[in-house]
């Protein structure tokens, strides 16, 4: 039943042999040394400072949506860095390998990367940036913010939430493993058939790609189920649909997209896996298979996926812009409708990824029109943001700067997207750099929104603001890098350069490629400034401490609880009276956070099972990649066993006693400083602060109990 493989296979190690370790490649050897030293340093530091118990109790076994969200964001940031290094290598290779006299190093004819190596890099760059950087960052921020915005104490399924995190992490870890054991797919992140079929890609690279992709798809689907259930079922009393904060609306729309589209990805990848493992013919060019069926199925997921990525970014912009314009969001209802219109249209546009398939002209026209339709709700959103700023008191703090950059990039990306919507034009530049530059504009909208959201909600999660100086250097160098990299890329697109070239035959493209390299230098400096930004913020955290309403003009519910947020989010579930509840309360003088008379709070208990399931799924993925059947069976048996074990565990929740809640709440102090500006405008600045009261042990509480600390640490 199993297909015949080229190369050796042993029952114990499957296809794994010593030759699969690329120790002769200096780049990978250097990377491995770097990673190993870093890992040893981290492990040693954890042991030296005695933090293993803390790590296990507070993070690895946690089911707290805020900590899970923070870990999602950390994962996203690490993978963003990896994807950036990939981008750096692609750009340097293309800048060197121009013209037939270009020098070659390290086994490459031109440049320093062989085509096989470069192929793996651009595949990994695409896959990592889409599913292991952008998705975890967005899911992480939704995880933290959505329950806070709707007045819930946790997600609907805290255990499932942790499971989603660890499955996604398992996928990301496998991508990293592919650097040092075996190789990665080398045909582009979305795969091509029949190129990805076993006869044409006999190595393990495509198998790595299949199973890492599958793991992230399962993780994201679980997360979407959780967020939908949370938003639908766990809103605070009084929070009717039209009082829902706009970011929560965006999250609902985006997770509906995820829930309905990710299964299609799983099926399309599973069919390819069947082709490769048991020799079926779903996508082969003969035997009744159809190779365009793969493109079709993949993009049935793929296009909804890009709106899955952009909608939370729009939601973040819609939260940041009103706060820093000191005005309510303009056109709330139209914003909600536009979010769902984008979500709905996302299901009818996927053919524009393969206009050149030679579908009939009527089909191509249909998909051109549906693609252009996306511009209408997006345009509504742009005008709503602009009208929100119009006659507002705009403050150019860091979150607002990022939101404005996102708005500008959205205009560039959106306009070029409209150009791509024409099937006739697409025949000219299909697979060209113009398309690549367009979608990089759009993913930079996401990146800018995410950086804005991190700046914006950081004080809510950690209790202190990030500093402004290095953050602004980071911001401006990101702009410089974006301009210098992507303006030449648009021009090269006009010149007809196609994507994924390992060698560029035309000397006249050389200047543009070198200008892009300058852009990459700006990006590298931006990364350095980002590190400085984080370091200085952490060092000066005491002076940057923020209160409940960190920016003074917050409008939605999350600004109503302490910063950082206690484990139970709200000592009392608030009753919601209006849209923009917190702004309304500030206007009406209802900002008191200490009602007294606390009750015990029912919360889920920590569990290590999701972490172990994640490890086992990683083992299963590794076994399937290398076709080590005994290991695969063992992992499946252990996974099923653990799931059964967990389902018979009745002791899954606990009650935080009332006196503990009171102790935590008393540790936070709220005040209205005398310097607060008067609330002249709706939602103006009556500021409530919560800060540490001297003499209490902070809102840290004891850490000797086996329970996690319910109050946030005094970080």
């Amino acid at each position: 039943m199993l297909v015949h493989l080229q190369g050796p296979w042993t029952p114990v190690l499957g296809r794994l042999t010593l030759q699969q370790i690329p120790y002769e490649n200096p780049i990978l050897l250097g990377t491995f040394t770097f990673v190993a030293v870093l890992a040893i340093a981290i492990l040693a530091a954890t042991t030296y400072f005695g933090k293993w118990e803390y790590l296990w109790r507070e993070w690895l076994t946690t089911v707290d949506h805020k900590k899970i969200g923070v870990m999602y964001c950390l994962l996203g940031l690490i993978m963003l860095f990896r994807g950036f290094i990939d981008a750096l290598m692609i750009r340097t290779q293309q800048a060197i390998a121009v013209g037939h006299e270009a020098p070659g190093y390290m086994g490459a004819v031109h440049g320093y990367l062989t085509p096989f190596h470069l192929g793996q890099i651009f595949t990994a760059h695409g896959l990592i940036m889409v599913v292991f950087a952008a998705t975890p960052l967005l899911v992480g921020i939704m995880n933290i913010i959505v329950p806070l915005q709707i007045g819930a104490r946790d997600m609907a399924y805290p255990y499932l939430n942790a499971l989603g995190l660890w499955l996604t992490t398992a996928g990301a870890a496998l991508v990293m493993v592919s650097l040092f054991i075996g190789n990665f797919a080398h045909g582009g992140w979305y795969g091509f058939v029949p190129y990805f079929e076993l006869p044409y890609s006999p190595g393990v690279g495509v198998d790595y790609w299949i199973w890492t992709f599958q793991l992230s798809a399962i993780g994201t689907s679980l997360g979407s189920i959780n967020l939908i259930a949370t938003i639908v079922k766990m809103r605070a009393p009084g929070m009717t649909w039209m009082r829902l904060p706009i970011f929560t609306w965006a999250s609902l729309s985006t997770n509906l997209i995820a829930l309905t589209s990710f299964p299609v990805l799983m099926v399309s990848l599973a069919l390819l896996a069947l082709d490769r493992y048991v020799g079926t013919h779903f996508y082969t060019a003969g035997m009744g298979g159809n190779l365009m069926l793969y493109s079709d199925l993949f993009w049935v997921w793929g296009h909804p996926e890009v709106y899955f990525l952009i909608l939370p970014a729009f939601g973040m912009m819609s939260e940041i812009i009103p706060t820093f314009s000191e005005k309510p969001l303009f056109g709330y209802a139209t914003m909600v409708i536009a979010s769902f219109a984008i979500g709905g249209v996302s299901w009818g546009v996927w053919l524009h990824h393969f206009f050149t398939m030679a579908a009939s002209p009527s089909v191509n026209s249909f998909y051109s029109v549906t693609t252009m339709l996306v511009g209408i709700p997006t345009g509504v959103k742009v005008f709503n943001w602009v009208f929100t700023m119009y006659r507002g008191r705009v403050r150019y703090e860091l979150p607002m700067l990022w939101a404005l950059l996102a708005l500008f990039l959205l205009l560039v990306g959106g306009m070029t997207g409209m150009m791509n919507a024409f099937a006739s034009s697409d025949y000219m530049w299909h697979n060209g750099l113009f398309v690549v530059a367009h979608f990089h504009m759009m993913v930079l909208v996401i990146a800018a929104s995410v950086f804005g959201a991190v700046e914006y909600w950081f004080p809510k999660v950690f209790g202190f603001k990030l500093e402004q100086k290095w953050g602004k250097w980071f911001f401006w160098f990101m702009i410089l890098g974006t301009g210098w990299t992507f303006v030449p890329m648009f021009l090269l697109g006009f010149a007809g350069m196609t994507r994924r070239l390992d060698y560029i035959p035309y000397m006249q493209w050389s200047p543009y490629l070198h200008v892009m390299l300058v852009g990459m230098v700006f990006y590298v400096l931006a990364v350095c400034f980002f590190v400085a930004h984080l370091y200085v913020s952490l060092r000066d955290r005491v002076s940057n401490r923020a209160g409940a309403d960190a920016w003074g003009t917050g409008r939605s519910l999350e600004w109503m609880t302490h910063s950082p947020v206690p484990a139970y989010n709200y000592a009392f579930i608030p009753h919601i009276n209006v849209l923009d509840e917190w702004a309304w309360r500030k206007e009406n003088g209802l900002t008191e956070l200490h009602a007294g008379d606390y009750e015990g709070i029912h919360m889920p208990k920590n569990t290590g099972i999701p972490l172990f399931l994640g490890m086992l799924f990683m083992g299963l993925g590794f076994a399937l990649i290398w076709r080590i059947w005994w290991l695969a069976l063992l992992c499946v048996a252990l996974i099923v066993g653990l799931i059964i074990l967990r389902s018979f565990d009745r002791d899954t929740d606990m009650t935080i006693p009332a006196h503990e809640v009171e102790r935590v709440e008393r540790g936070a102090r709220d005040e209205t400083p005398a310097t607060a500006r008067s609330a002249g405008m709706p939602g103006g600045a009556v500021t409530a602060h919560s800060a540490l009261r001297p003499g209490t042990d902070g809102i840290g509480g004891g850490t000797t109990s086996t329970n996690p600390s319910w109050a946030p640490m005094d970080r």
Partner: protein
Amino acid sequence: MTEHTQNPLNHPEVQLANGRAYLVSFILSMLLTTAGLWLAITHITTPFGTVLVTSFLAGAVVVIQGYFILHMDISHAQIWHTVAMVLFLPLFVVTIGLTAWMFHGLYQRTMLMPPGASDMAQMSHPPHERTPS
């Protein structure tokens, strides 16, 4: 999530869980899937007939699993299943329908092959329609 003790059996959708129904659904689904596989392997009918019958069998499996496993009905307790179904149907129609539309006639435009060169060409067109190249 205030302090409460909930008995899962108080939930109507939990009461609907039924080991026998799961088993019946599993056996029926396996039988129908095997029948579909057998039809496809033995080429007992025309290609179009095979597609038709396997589609019918697949539809039957969907109905059986929806009824026995998801307990789809229009009672109030199952309203979320109904809502999910109503939201899902248009997507199903859009994806399958539009895919059928974009693939309709694709081979005539792309797979110009000499007679008998490809199994796929034989499957998609009767011999007299094939375009000589």
